[in-house]
């Protein structure tokens, strides 16, 4: 139920957006829970609603955190 799937926001029309989940799956998504979202943003979608924007640099931050936590030099090679 709390499954959320990341996808690329490709179109915004008021509170409704179109999200590309890859492999040709494009769905209408409700953006009402987000402060702001623009085409090109990655969003996490749960039950038809985008619940958070996931900026690409944050993904890099995750990897940084892992690297710090594990302190493995070859982590991101």
């Amino acid at each position: 139920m709390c499954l959320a799937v990341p996808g690329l926001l490709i179109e915004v029309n008021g509170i409704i957006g179109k999200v590309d989940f890859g492999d040709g799956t494009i769905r209408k998504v409700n953006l009402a829970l987000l402060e702001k979202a623009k085409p090109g943003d990655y969003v996490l979608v749960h039950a038809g609603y985008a619940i958070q924007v996931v900026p690409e640099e944050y993904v890099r931050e995750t990897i940084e955190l892992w690297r710090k936590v594990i302190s493995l030099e070859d982590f991101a090679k």
Partner: protein
Amino acid sequence: MFRFRDKSTANKILEKIKDLNIKAKFMNVCGTHQDTIVRYSLDTLLEPYGIELVAGPGCPICVTTSREYMEAMVLAARGKIITTYGDAARVRIRGRSLLTLRGDGADIRIVYSIDDAVEIAKMNPNRDVVFLAVGFETTAPSTAYTILSDPPRNFYILNCHRRIPPAIEALLSLGEVKIDGFIDPGHVSTIIGLEPYERIVSRFPIPHVISGFEPLDVLVSVYMLARQVKRGEAKVENEYSRAVRREGNPRALKLIEEVFEYTDLEWRGLSRVENSGMRLKRKYEDRDARLVFQDELKLLEEYSEPKGCRCSEVLRGLAKPRECPLFSITCTPLNPIGPCMVSVEGACYIEYKHRRV
């Protein structure tokens, strides 16, 4: 090139966990975490290093009580259109589910989103349309938003939303299972942020790590928990920082606050949990199926939980799916007896799907 799923990285993390040389039991409270853990056998990989992973009350379909499903069935039998997410329609009470009621002519519609349920109400202006609203804080904001966006008059909510932090506190208060740390649910946390867990830690000082859902996310989170245990710390760490901000999602939280008020609520497995329910506020009671259809709901029959089913103990981390005498013998995904075998987030379904033999 960095990958989120990489065996050699996983092995390195496992080595780090091994080096900590601790013995601990960590609980997850999210079906999607349980799926990652069993799908990639992370529990089996961690066991030799003294780490036991156990599932808790993290499946919304499973913790919703039989009574709530029966309310939906009664309303379906009275001619309302019942809309809900797929798994909720398959939960059986005394051998019957919303889906099997379809065979008796009930109008049950599976939806992907509450927006689809509103569309159904618009297309059927002369019918009552009830949305069986199951889900934790991740799902509740969409229900709140819908209530506030003036859906058609014939649209009602059968509200079963629940809050996760009170359930964690209830488990810790019960003290039946000694839990050394929590893998906190990533997507619930996307909405609620870090603070609710910090409040729990101030009462029950054990480690918490909010985790993402890739196998490496979970392994790193387990390592972070184990490290806290080793150091004798008890704090909330956020491994899933790419999606979880400290403050959560303020807009979604505001919607919840506007529409719902907290109330004590019964959970399957946990009985009554203080402040764990989200009741529609009085000003929205014209949307509350329980109030609007209260006379029809008086037809609710007595019921009992299926004999032998150990869902309640599975949901408290007291029993593993395989310890249930019904598991994979009489209870299977095609013929589920308890809800933990119905939902894709149920511990029994996950165990059956990935590790049947």
